[in-house]
């Protein structure tokens, strides 16, 4: 039984963009938890959060919801079940520095 599915290169590119944006947000979120009065970090968090939201919506419309429970719509059909799930992807080593 092999669940591997080839991911469309464009989907992979967008997923990597989402990973980069969200990693920035994870870092800023944790930093703000212990530095809630840091105005510069807050500005950056809000700016990147808006950017993340745009790419997340765009990704969702093309490849299905990124987040469950209604945080992304599934246009036309129920795409939440579409393969591959995250652990079924063997990431290309490209784009790593």
């Amino acid at each position, binding site marked *: 039984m092999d669940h591997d599915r080839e991911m469309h290169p464009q989907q992979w590119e967008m*997923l990597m963009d989402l990973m980069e944006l969200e*990693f920035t947000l*994870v870092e800023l979120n944790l930093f703000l*938890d212990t530095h809630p009065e840091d105005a510069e970090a807050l500005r950056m968090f809000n700016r990147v959060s808006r950017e993340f939201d745009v790419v997340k919506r765009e990704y969702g419309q093309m490849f299905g919801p*990124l987040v469950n429970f209604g945080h992304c719509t599934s246009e036309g059909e129920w795409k939440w079940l579409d393969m591959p799930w995250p*652990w079924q992807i*063997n990431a290309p*080593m490209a784009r790593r520095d």
Partner: protein
Amino acid sequence: MWLYEKKLEYPVSVQGPNPKLAKAVITQYGGPDGELAASLRYLTQRYTMPIKEGIGTLTDIGTEELAHMEIVAAIVYNLIKDASIEEIKEAGLEGYYADHDKALYFVNGDGVPWTAAYIQSKGDPITDLHEDMAAEQKARSTYEYLIQLSDDPGVTDALRFLREREVVHFQRFGETLMKVQEYYEHPRYM
């Protein structure tokens, strides 16, 4: 309430079947200093944190640890999914295979199942945050040992990411500890 995002926090690539490496890496899934222990420790300690910075930090790091658990699972799953019975035997994974086939289960590298005794929730926030800082250091050490053991560059890359996260979490818990200490010296409203 939790949400699931259909992506890994960091991409995982593996070169091919390597059950010997999987046997070592699985300790970060269900071992004493692994990601399950980390996540459950922080998420259960947060209820008795006296300040909002502590509650937020434990909630968010506890949540990020679940994403790390998924990265470790993705590594282990991909290292064993195409392994032959011969390779399973050579890696000394027969015992695991007999109980779990190639399924993911919470054990350390020697097959010892996860136990809640790995974690503590003491009710004293100073004590709990010291435990959390120690836990991050123990996990960092484990990732360093796993990096030494890894013969797969893609796995090493993901392990390096996970190691770095332990360093950041240690820093954030240290800052939280200072804030809790300040709170006890000068009590304030949340």
